C-alpha cells in the first residue's frame, strides 16, 4: 500500500495542432462514450449545448494571409483548478492523480464552477436528458446519465482508467500506456491526441510536453492545465 502511494501519476494530454484536421471525430466519440445528451436547437442557440470535447476553430492572421486552426478543447484538468476553489459543497475536486472530478450526486447546481472556469468546459444540465427509445439502448452503462440541475465535465474517461486498472490487476500485470486511452484519443484518425502519464518518462506525453512547440491555453492565469498543445509549425 505504501509503495503504491509513492508512485505519482498525473494524467495529461498533448494535442498536436498540426495533425488536427478538425474532423470532429473526437467530439462525436466523446458524446457517445459519455452519454452526453443533446439539446434542442433553440436551447443550443442560448449556449446550452453540451460538448465535453469541443473543436474550436480559430482564424489567425489578416486577410488575405489567413490560416485556420482547430483547437480540440477538453477540460484542461488544471493542476490549480479555479472551479474547485469556488465549489461550496466539494462536488468538484482534484484527485490524487490530478484529474478534476465532478461528483454529480453531490452537485447542487449553483454553477459557480461554470463561471469560474476560464476555458468554459463545465456544462450545466438545464433539463433532464431526453433520448429516443432507440437511442436509450446505446447508453454507456459505465457512465452515469446526469440528471437535471447538475454540472458535468470531461473526466479524461475516468471509467476507462478504472476498467484498465481492473483488467491489469486481474491479469497480474502493471498498467501499460496503451491500456488507458480516452475515447477522443481512440477516435482521432490522425493521432493528434496523445494521452498518458506526465510523470512517467516512458510515456509519449512526457516527451511531447517538453517539445519547443508546446504551449498551454491561458497559461498566464496560473491554472497549470494538464492539456498541452503543440503549436502549428510556420
Amino acid at each position, binding site marked *: 500500500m505504501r509503495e503504491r502511494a509513492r508512485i505519482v501519476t498525473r494524467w495529461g494530454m498533448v494535442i498536436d495542432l498540426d495533425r488536427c484536421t478538425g474532423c470532429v471525430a473526437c467530439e462525436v466519440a466523446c458524446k457517445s462514450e459519455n452519454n452526453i445528451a443533446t439539446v434542442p436547437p433553440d436551447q443550443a442557440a442560448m449556449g446550452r449545448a453540451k460538448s465535453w470535447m469541443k473543436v474550436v476553430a480559430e482564424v489567425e492572421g489578416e486577410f488575405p494571409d489567413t490560416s485556420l486552426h482547430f483547437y480540440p478543447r477538453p477540460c484542461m484538468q488544471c493542476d490549480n483548478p479555479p472551479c474547485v476553489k469556488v465549489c461550496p459543497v466539494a462536488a468538484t475536486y482534484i484527485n490524487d492523480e490530478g484529474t478534476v*472530478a465532478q*461528483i454529480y*450526486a453531490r452537485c447542487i447546481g449553483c454553477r459557480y464552477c461554470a463561471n469560474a472556469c476560464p476555458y468554459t468546459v463545465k456544462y450545466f444540465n438545464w433539463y433532464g436528458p431526453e433520448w429516443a427509445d432507440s437511442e436509450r439502448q446505446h447508453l454507456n452503462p*459505465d*457512465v452515469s446519465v446526469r440528471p437535471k440541475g447538475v454540472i458535468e465535465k470531461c*473526466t479524461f474517461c*475516468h471509467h476507462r482508467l478504472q476498467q484498465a486498472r*481492473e483488467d491489469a*490487476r*486481474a491479469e497480474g500485470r502493471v498498467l501499460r500506456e496503451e491500456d488507458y486511452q480516452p475515447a477522443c484519443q481512440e477516435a482521432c484518425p490522425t493521432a493528434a491526441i496523445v494521452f498518458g502519464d506526465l510523470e512517467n518518462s516512458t510515456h509519449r506525453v512526457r516527451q511531447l510536453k517538453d517539445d519547443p512547440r508546446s504551449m498551454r491555453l491561458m497559461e498566464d492565469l496560473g491554472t497549470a492545465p494538464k492539456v498541452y498543445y503543440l503549436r502549428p509549425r510556420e
Partner: protein
Amino acid sequence: MSSRLALSRGFSTVLTWLSPRRRLVWLLGVAVLVVATATVLRAARQAPVSQPIAFNHLIHTRDLELGCEFCHKYVRSGAHSGLPDAENCSLCHRVQLGTSEEAAKLTKMINDGEPLQFNKLFRLADHVFYTHRRHVGIAKLECQNCHGAIADTEQPPTRPLVQITMNLCLDCHRKRELTVDCNACHR
C-alpha cells in the same frame, strides 16, 4: 399533574385560542404533514422483495456444498453477480428433488418452459458504480462481507440482511488503506 396531562391540556389551550375555523385548518395541516412524512419515509425504505420460488439457500450451500458461483455465475467476472435462471436450476431440478412443494413447483416450471425470474434483493443507488469483479474476483472478498448470512437463510429474505451504506464501504476501504477517492465509485 403528570407531564402528559399537562401537555394535552396545553395543546387544548392552544386550540381554544383559535377560532373554530382556524382550528380545523390547523388540524388539517398537521394531518397532511404526518401523512406526507409517513409517505416519504415509506418510499425511502426499500419495498419488500418477493421471489417466484421460496429458495432455500441453506440446503444448497450447507447440505449440497454448492459454491455461490454455481448460481451467481458472474460473481468473479462481472459487475453484477447474476441471478440463476431456469436453465441454471434445470441442471439438477429437471426431475423433482425432495418432497417440498417449492421443489415440485420449480420442476413443473422448468418442464413447462416457464421463465424463471428471481428478483434482486441488494440494490445500490444509480450513481454508485460497483463491480463484483474487483471485490470478489480480484480482491477475493467473502460474500458475507456485504451480504451477511444470506447463505444460511431458509426462506428468501424480503429485505436486505445488511443495509449497504457508503459508510460500510468507506470503513472497509480505510481499514485496508484503499482508495477513498469519490471518483472511484461515483462518476
